[in-house]
């Protein structure tokens, strides 16, 4: 695990273990080792490591995971504030730089 962690107790990640079939897809796609397998079910082991990318939710065949995904990007949030939209790093039509 790397030493870089962000703010604690803010992440919106949620897992419904009842629905989990133990396929381990969330363990595969998570870039920050947030999940582990306990008794053949996924378990959130490092919630504060989650960056809310949404890969686990997207790839859970049972729909057991929910997270408000988006970009953790100040410029994207400012973009949203200026345009009155959701945070967005989609700045293709403003000519601004983005990822």
């Amino acid at each position, binding site marked *: 695990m790397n030493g*870089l962690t*962000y703010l604690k107790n*803010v*992440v919106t990640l949620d897992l419904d273990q009842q629905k989990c079939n133990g396929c381990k897809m969330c363990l595969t*796609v998570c870039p920050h080792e947030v999940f582990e397998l306990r008794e053949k079910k996924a378990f959130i082991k490092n919630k504060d490591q989650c960056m809310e990318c949404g890969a686990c939710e997207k790839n859970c065949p049972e729909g057991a995971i929910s997270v408000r995904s988006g970009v953790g990007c*100040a410029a994207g949030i*400012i973009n949203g504030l200026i345009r009155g939209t959701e945070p967005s790093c989609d700045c293709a039509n403003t000519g601004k730089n983005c*990822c």
Partner: protein
Amino acid sequence: MKEDYVTGNVKTIFGPVPQVSTVWSRSDIWQTIKVRWNLGRMNYKVESGLYAAGNPDATSDVFVSANFKLSFDHLRRALHGINAWILVLDTKGINVWCAAGKGTFGTAELINRIKIHALLNIVDHRNLIVPQLGAVGVSAHEVKSKTGFRVIYGPVRAEDIGIYIKSEYKATQEMRSVKFPLKDRIKLIPVEITYGKYYLALVPAVFFILAGFNPHGYSVDAAWSNGGRAVINLMAAYVTGCVLTPALLPWIPFKRFSLKGLLLGWLTAVLFLFLNLLGNNIFEIISWFLMMGALSSFLAMNFTGSSTFTSLSGVQKEMKLSLPLQIAAAALGLMGWIITRFI
């Protein structure tokens, strides 16, 4: 149009597929350097479609990538000595991870490309190797149910593909985790430096002009001396926020990027105080602490977008407090600095 990384064609029953070089040319290297400095970065694309590395056949692996040329270049270089197909999605010239976040590197586009390029007929097997970070936009079970292809998430970094194949398509935890080492942070810094764009010339010019005002009218000498100091202080704060803070990120106390930037911004200001760059007037000194702290803090906060571990919820929480304070501090500092011209 023939691109210089296309070296020939591989014949398939659906016509020729461009074969690409797996070595970077001098032009590829030069273009990479330019893109790292944000020159033409938003229009650095390759044609989306099917490509061949080496001489692939119906049994060869299919690797999926984005049409940002830097992503594509890293993949083809990683496939040196390997016969494989490369399926490039149309991500509007954006890299895999960011495009997956926007949904352009996504389930629909992948299904679309599988059909357009008749992948069912090009290969006998039903596996696609997708970079792991593409999972943000791709739903493996949906692709499977709609096309029959099984999405296998490969390593995060293309450079690990060689070992990944040798170890029988097992991505180790190391290959699947996103770290943010110094090497990666340094690569991102040039783009951060270009953040200010023309303001990097405009703001100093304004400070030079304002610096000449005094109670007796206007002094060109004062414009040079006070203005010169102002530009040095501002530039130093800028560099502190978008170069020093990203480079030293894990070693600076605090979790909030804005606080990391503020701390280093103030340390720079303290150093400059001793170098006599903040002026002799207490109001001007306070003004500089406000402006330099705000600028460095803001730019550091901006690096959340380049970092690989900040969540939307976290950045929103951080900004709620930091952004108004940064704006207030910058405005107060600017007012204070202007007022000290006249006392």
